[in-house]
């Protein structure tokens, strides 16, 4: 918006020309070209698996060794493709920050978050250890991590999905780079935090002239902060131009489809299937469920202090879900949503409370009973990449539960796996790939397909569409709706996407800091929120306006 005025006059900050990336014989980025001017924020949107992440990695010179990139990438007149490692070191982190799509695996499991955030500061800004640590605390506070003084000492495995993502962002912006490549930086964030991050980026953009390449599936977000947008599909750029123009008057058919699939534009797609209320016959009942984690301290502290400090991640949560119902869980990042899901599926040991499925106590199950329960209740993990065994191919991973549970022979299971792949909109060609060879959205769908393979009665879906473009997202939601109708599938749907939740779920629970702060019929809660936090949440949502003739985008609220 403001940037638009300058951009013609200035030389491009980054210019990508004819960039092609191939894995062996498979070309995944096909000669794309675009430019980015100083102080500009551009968005990249596109189909899942269209090569957005790979293209950005190519720009930063961080492709896996099996990839071959050709073309030209110029940053401030330097040809990045020609840099040697020492030159790259000067560029990366200082001139060019990178936020990876999958924050979990990109954090060093052995080092405290604070140190990882501080590392680039020490390296590029030559801060002292202590100063850098202080700065890291500030940065974590900037990205909305509560109690940052304490959290700098946490390790990645103690962070929630969204918190890891924010830590990654903090590390990337720490040195004030000229260019930030942000690969879906807000997928795991609730809207308030998302708004906060976006505001942070905008601030940096305005005050320090940070240029950003933002990959996102959320056109609302793109529309909010990007001056230009690039639309990708199947490794090619199908359309690019000023945001207003592309969103308001899409030229390419795919762009049109994309914009029309925006949840806010198709609220009445008929996803909601009414069922009996939870009060009469709860299928799943979570009663006063609490989960706490030990707080790990340094060795010296550990040596001296015998007592155990704990952190209450979930505090007496009560949840009821009726058969066939779709219940949404929304809430702050780090508020215990995933913890709840894990506790229900017996992956966490609750410190108190009960979980009942069809009246049966879940927490007491063992052996055969537990196996039966697992078949009935399936969960899709928030972090799709890490939840796939790196050694198994897509087809193996999906087929395994089928034949393991004796639902079909191995051969039959392989066939079913192919069907499932199709159901989740994954091309057949991916069946022999390993997780490392998939895009974020593709992994996510593999996780979903695997969970569905057992034909569970209940599905706990932890952010299953966050990495999907809206078109694919819509297809997945269609699929779930169909399953609900056909199989009476019960869904616990954890999501940050309020639009989807309100369109898709019957009831919703709102989480904050380990507690349920509000619950009720989804539409009601999300249109007339009662609790302050819910209000804040709802207020922070950005959408594309229903019709977008002129500029087409405006947040419901100014982000404060």
């Amino acid at each position, binding site marked *: 918006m403001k940037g638009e005025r300058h951009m013609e006059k200035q030389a491009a900050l980054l210019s990508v020309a004819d960039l092609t990336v191939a894995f062996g014989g498979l070309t995944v980025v096909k000669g794309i070209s675009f430019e980015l001017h100083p102080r500009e924020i551009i968005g990249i949107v596109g189909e899942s698996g269209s090569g957005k992440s790979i293209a950005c990695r190519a720009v*930063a010179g*961080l492709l*896996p*060794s099996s990839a071959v990139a050709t073309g030209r990438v110029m940053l401030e007149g330097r040809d990045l493709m020609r840099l040697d*490692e*020492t030159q*790259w*070191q*000067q*560029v*990366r*982190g*200082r001139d060019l*920050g*990178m936020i*990876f799509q*999958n924050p979990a*695996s*990109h*954090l*060093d*499991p*052995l*080092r405290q978050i604070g140190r990882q955030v501080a*590392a*680039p500061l020490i*390296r*590029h800004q030559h801060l002292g250890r202590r100063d850098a640590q202080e700065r890291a605390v500030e940065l974590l506070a900037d990205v909305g991590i509560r109690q940052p003084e304490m959290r700098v000492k946490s*390790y990645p*495995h*103690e962070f929630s999905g969204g918190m890891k993502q924010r830590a*990654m962002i903090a*590390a*990337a912006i720490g040195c004030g780079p000229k260019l930030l490549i942000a690969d879906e930086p807000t997928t795991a964030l609730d809207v308030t935090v998302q708004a906060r991050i976006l505001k942070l980026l905008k601030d940096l953009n305005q005050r320090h002239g940070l240029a950003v390449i933002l990959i996102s599936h959320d056109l609302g977000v793109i529309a909010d902060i990007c001056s230009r947008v690039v639309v990708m599909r199947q490794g090619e750029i199908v359309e690019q131009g000023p945001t207003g123009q592309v969103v308001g008057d899409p030229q390419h058919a795919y762009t049109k489809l994309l914009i029309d699939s925006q949840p806010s534009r198709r609220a009445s797609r008929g996803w909601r299937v009414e069922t009996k209320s939870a009060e009469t016959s709860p299928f799943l009942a979570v009663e006063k469920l609490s989960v706490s984690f030990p707080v*790990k301290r340094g*060795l010296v502290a*550990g*040596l*001296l*202090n*015998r*007592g*155990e400090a704990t952190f209450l991640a979930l505090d007496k949560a009560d949840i009821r879900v009726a058969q066939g119902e779709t219940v949404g869980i929304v809430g702050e990042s780090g508020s215990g949503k995933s913890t709840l899901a894990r506790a229900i599926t017996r992956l966490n040991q609750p410190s108190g409370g009960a979980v009942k499925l069809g009246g049966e106590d879940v927490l007491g199950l063992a052996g055969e009973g537990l196996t039966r329960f697992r078949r009935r209740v399936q969960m899709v993990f928030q972090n799709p990449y890490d939840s796939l065994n790196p050694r198994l191919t897509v087809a193996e991973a999906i087929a395994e539960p089928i034949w393991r549970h004796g639902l079909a022979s191995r051969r039959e299971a392989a066939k079913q796996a192919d069907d499932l792949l199709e159901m989740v909109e994954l091309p057949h060609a991916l069946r022999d790939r390993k997780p490392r060879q998939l895009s974020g959205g593709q992994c996510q769908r593999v996780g979903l397909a695997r969970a569905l393979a057992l034909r569970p009665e209940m599905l706990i879906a932890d952010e299953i569409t966050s990495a999907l473009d809206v078109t694919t997202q819509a297809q997945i939601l269609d699929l779930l709706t169909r399953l609900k109708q056909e199989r009476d599938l019960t869904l616990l749907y954890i999501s940050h996407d309020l639009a989807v939740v309100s369109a898709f779920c019957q009831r919703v629970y709102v989480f904050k800091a380990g507690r349920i702060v509000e619950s009720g019929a989804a539409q009601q809660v999300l249109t007339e929120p009662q609790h302050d936090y819910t209000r804040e949440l709802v207020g922070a949502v950005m959408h594309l306006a229903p019709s977008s003739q002129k500029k087409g985008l405006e947040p419901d609220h100014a982000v404060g």
Partner: protein
Amino acid sequence: MGHLQAILQRLLQLIPVLLGITIVAFLLLHLAPGDPARLLAGDRASAETIAAIRHQYGLDLPLWRQFLTYMGNLLQGDIGQSLRFQRPVVELIGQFMWPTLFLVSYVVVLSVPPTLILAITSARKPGGLADQIIRLIGVAGLTIPVFWLGIMMSRFFGVALGWFPVSGYGEGFLDHLHHLFLPALSTAIWFIPVLTQSLRAALIDKATADFATAAKAQGASQRDIFWSTVLPNAVLPTLNLLGVLVAFIIGGTIIVEMVYAVPGLGTLMIKSLLGRDYYVVQGLTLVFAVATVLITLAVDVLTAIIDPRVKL
């Protein structure tokens, strides 16, 4: 659980371990053929003489009585007397312990830096020329029998060149360093490839991990990435291996100690075994057990320090 508590608990668990080892060792030793009395008295001794000696040392008692006596003494902190030398076992172990401790530390000091250098060079470009050469040398180092190497080195450096003594332990720190150089080197030549292979494999594994890429994306130099990200993540299996091997060589430097006539625990062990000096072997076993447990504990503590996901 606090670390201190965990450590204390582990030390407490030492008791059943020691008990277990004592029992097993006692039984096995007495199962093995051979008679200390015969070895003591020599070839010409008559059956009556042997019987008299056996009686004097209580070797003619039923096994369980011998064991009870032994345990009784053990509980009072007395680990017995050498049958062969009529000296307290403690004294013998005290005499032979230092060369071994020195040797083991020497081996570790000599091994760890080359291991790091070789594994790093090798893992930096897997399949590259340096890597191939290092692996070949590693294989050679592994395949050359320690005793052969020991003898060759003592001939060459000790006899032909006269640079190093070919036996003993010497007096004083520098003298020890001088005397034990060849033994330590002979062991290290076998030690280094084993560790290098393990570390190299782990390094290559972790060097391609996403978090290494992330560090790269933050502009960290190769060296930085290596030292602060890849190495810590890769070092755990090697650390464990090192722990096992160090525990192993405390009692297992036998060949090298024999070749270089180092008066260490390995020598003591083998001589006591060959002489069926039961209580010395028992005592050594206890010492090895304590050493192993301490080393394992140290490795576990280090692991817990390095990896926050691991609890002690």
